[in-house]
Each structure stands twice: as structure tokens, then as C-alpha cells.
């Protein structure tokens, strides 16, 4: 279990090792407070969708999963993507309702990037990796929450660095996105160092 958690947060960091969800990562990292909000939203969405998808996969989709209604030969795993995305979409909509109700300022600050989590590759990737790696439902919970934390950690650290960078005397052409890409690269380099720790 701890290996999965460790991998989810650090070595297999969705943002910095797999470069998943990078569009949102770059777009919503101007302010630390907004990044923090989005990070928490991603942890919740990931922490719920991965286990739910794991359950659906185990009970309904996987080859032989339907033996409990007497149809052991049916394999619905080809429906994986559409089912996972459906669950993610519903979860994100719920998230929107919750934020709009309880943290309206964050809801506004996230703007279109909140609904865009629906098609965020980090979120779908979390569920697909779970299937690929054959995690059991309990492991899926750890992986879901862990990978959410990992992504949140990456964007929060990145936003904090970007806030500082605003006062740095960077060459004209590197201000803004140019510098952001370089920082992402350096952070990814740093995270790859955790790979050594894992062995």
C-alpha cells in the first residue's frame, strides 16, 4: 500500500512524470490560492472517481465480471472509456454545484477550467492506469487519492514558484509561458529524482 501511495504522489506523479493535465496545470497556476483550490478539487474528483470506476470495472466491465448474473462469458471492458468519462463528468458537475454554492470566489476564479476537468487527461489517466495496473478496489482508493495529491502538490508548488517569478528579472521573451515551461521541466527533473528513492 505505501509503495502505491508513494508512487502515486511522487515517482508516478501524473503532472510531472507523465505530463498529464498540463493544460490546466499551466493555465490555473498564476495564483497560489486558485491553484490550491483546484488542487483540492482534483484530489476530491480523483479520490472519488478512481474507486468508483474501479468498482464498476470489477463488478460490471472486466472479462467474467458479470458471472454474478450468470453471464460469465460476456466482456464489457471495451465500454471502459465511455463509462469512466460518464462517471467523471457527473462528479465534476457535482463539484461545480458544490463550489458555486460554498466557495463562489473559487468557482469564478477557476472559470472554464473547472468543467474542463471532465476531459482532463490526468483524471481519466488515473482511472485507466488503475485498470492497467490491475489494482484491487482498496488499492484503487489509495491510488486515486494519492495521484490526486500528487497532481495537487505539483500545481501548488508550481504556482508558488510562478508567484515568486513575477518579481524576477527574466529576459523579456521568457516572461509568462516561456518561463513556466522551463520551470515545469526543472520540476519534472526534480521529481524524477524520487525514482531513485523508490528502489
Amino acid at each position, binding site marked *: 500500500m505505501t509503495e502505491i501511495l508513494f508512487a502515486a504522489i511522487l515517482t508516478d506523479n501524473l503532472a510531472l512524470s507523465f505530463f498529464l493535465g498540463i493544460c490546466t496545470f499551466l493555465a490555473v497556476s498564476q495564483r497560489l490560492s486558485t491553484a490550491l483550490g483546484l488542487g483540492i478539487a482534483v484530489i476530491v474528483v480523483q479520490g472519488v472517481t478512481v474507486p468508483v470506476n474501479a468498482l464498476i470495472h470489477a463488478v460490471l466491465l472486466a472479462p467474467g465480471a458479470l458471472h454474478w448474473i450468470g453471464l460469465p462469458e460476456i466482456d464489457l471492458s471495451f465500454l471502459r472509456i465511455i463509462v469512466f468519462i460518464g462517471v467523471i463528468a*457527473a462528479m465534476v458537475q457535482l463539484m461545480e454545484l458544490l463550489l458555486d454554492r460554498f466557495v*463562489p470566489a473559487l468557482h469564478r476564479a477557476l472559470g472554464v477550467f473547472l468543467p474542463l476537468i471532465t476531459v482532463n487527461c490526468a483524471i481519466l489517466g488515473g482511472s485507466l492506469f488503475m485498470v492497467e495496473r490491475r489494482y484491487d478496489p482498496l488499492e484503487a482508493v489509495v491510488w486515486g487519492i494519492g495521484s490526486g495529491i500528487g497532481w495537487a502538490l505539483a500545481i501548488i508548488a508550481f504556482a508558488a514558484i510562478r508567484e515568486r517569478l513575477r518579481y524576477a528579472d527574466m529576459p523579456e521573451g521568457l516572461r509568462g509561458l516561456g518561463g513556466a515551461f522551463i520551470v515545469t521541466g526543472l520540476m519534472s527533473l526534480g521529481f524524477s529524482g524520487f525514482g531513485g528513492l523508490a528502489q
Partner: protein
Amino acid sequence: MTGVLAGVVLLVTLVLALSTALLIARRRLVPDLPVAVTVNDRAPFESRFGTDLLGALAAQDILLPAACGGAGTCGQCRVRVRGEIVAPMPAERARLSRAERRQGMHLACQIRLRAPLTIELPEAILGARGFEGTVLRTRFLTPLIREIVLDAPPDVTASVKAGAFVSLTAPPHDLGFDAIEVPERFSEDWAELRALRAIVTAPVTRAYSIASTPADRRQGQLVLLIRLALPPPDRPRLPPGAVSSWLFHVKEGARIAASGPHGDFRAQQGTREMVLVGGGVGMAPLRAIIHERLDQGAPQPISFWYGARRRDDLFYAEEFTALTRHHPNFRFEVALSDPRPDDGWEGRTGFVHVALREGFLRDHPEPEACDYYLCGPPLMIAAVMGVLNEAGVPPGRIFFDDFGS
């Protein structure tokens, strides 16, 4: 076959289950409940959960100025919320200063009603109301500025204070500039503009300052100065201004949907020397203020510095020259930045901020003891702020009306 069937059943059930879950969540989180709103110390009124405050107030005929129509970019729909400070929305952070936010200022268009709310509004705004104005007459003052005189309900004109503005709403329209009647002397300036076309598919509202003198107001007349908003020179393919183009087409007798009076640009009471600096249609509120103060018999020196490019861009000059004759405490100075040889101009030349510095600030014993009122193009306001700052005028003595939003 059973595989396909199982897949279909599974998908349908899943979608139904997810939708049901969302419906229930929505019912819980966005209940259709009444929410009470209290304005100042009046009796509260009811609105629905989740509506925005700007709309809720409008439904009660409390019309806040809202030039951007609720997008959160004009910063005009300000209200003070009583009670605990709510986290500001991003648009509010951009439009309101830290000090204002600490006092509980908000933009009404950004607030969604979720719990009973008590807000404070200036009584002057509560006096604003929607009305229809009839165009009495129009004329061209300069090639791109048109004067429109509206006949408005007497209670509206009576509640106007100099410096206030009205919001005018243009209906959807599709108007070619070749249909605009332009006086002969400006036809040359207009030759290139004839190809322009203004197409607007939904009603649009914009703010226009009231230039009426007290005498105009007593006759129930709102004098408005409209500057035609042309596409920026470097992007000639953009459409011309939505509302100003329409206002260049309206004819006598037309009825215009309006609301007002709005705004808190005002002359300070008291006897501090007044210096007014303007350019273009910035003339409008300054004219109203000058006439009002002189009409009230203000004893202090009042000077009006107006900047234009050339003779053709100068208007109301005779009127102000006449005022200087009747009121020894009033002084009128014009600076033309780019007079034509055939203008025969013998007055000041150069930018108005330079004229103000050379002709006023430099020799004035106490520039910091005057009140300054600025209204005009953003660049002009910035330049004048610069020379005032140099002369040691504290920002608190400078009042300006910012059209550029």
C-alpha cells in the same frame, strides 16, 4: 447478442443513475427559495436564491449603473454589503481597491443571493429610475461629436446633480454610416467613414454624462454629448461603437430607453478654488458643474482648461467666453495641440497639461489648495495627473470621471 444487450442496458442504467444523482444534488444545493434583500433601511424585498444582486435590484426598479451589463468589467455597480466580509470575486479584486474591499464594497453583478443580505446604496442611486427620453433636437458640434437634447420626465431632471450621467440603451440595429446626415462643413472628414456599418443583435447599454445647465434642467432637458467611437486606427476592420453609432443615427422625435441619474462625480461644496481640465466629450460633466457652481453664486475662482486638436474640435467656446464676462471669478483657457494654418488660431497651442503647468500651476502660490476636476481621454487624464503630482497636489484633491471602460 447478449453482449450488445448487456452493454446497452449497462450504459443506459449508468446514465440514468448519474443524472438522478445530479438532479438530487442540484435540488439540495440550489434550492428554489426566496431570499430577502434589504437596501439601506427600507423594508426588505424578496428575490430568488441564486439570482445576481444586480438583476434582483433591477427587478425592484433600483437601477445601478452597469455599463458592462454585468460582465464585471466596468466596476460601476458598486454596493456596500453590511455584515461580515465575504471573499471577493476575481472581478471585484480587479475593480475595487483593497481599502474599498475592506469596507465591504462589492460589485452587485458578482454577488449571487444565497442568504438574506443587507446592502447600502447612496440615496442618489435610489433616486435613479428607468424612463424614456424623446429626442428634441440634435446637432453636430465637431466632426465626431454630436449634441443630443432629450426631453426627460421632470422628476428625473430635477434629481440630476451636475456631474451625473444617464445610461442609454440602443435596441438591436443594423445601420450604415452612409445614412448619417452630416453638415456640409464636415463632409470632408466623413468621406472615409461612409463605408462603416454598425450591426448589433441585442440591446446594448452605455453611460453618457449629462451636460445640462441648471436652466436646461429646469426645462426638463438632458443635454448629451456623444462622441462617435470609431475602430482603432490600427484595426480598421473592427466594427464601430455599438451605442454611439446608433446615437448618431437617431432623429428628432425618437424615443430612447434610459435610466438615471447615476454617478458620484460631483463638485465639492465649499470655497476652495476650482480647476477643471477637460478634452473631447469630457466637456459634458465639466460644463454641467461649471454652470451649476456659477449659478449657485460660488465666490471662489473657477478656471476651465480645455484641450482640443484644432479649431473644428472646439465647441461651446462662445458660451464659456460669455460666462467669463458675467462672472469675473471664471476663467476659460483653450489649448489647441494641432491647429491648422487656416484656423487663424492665436491662443495657446500645445497639450492642455502643458498649458495648465505653464499658465497656472507654475505661478499659483498654492496649487495644493485647489480642487481639480478632470474628464477626458485617458491619455490626457494621465498627463494632467502627472503635472499635478509634480506641482505637489495630493491625489485626494483630484476628482476625475473615467470614461474609458
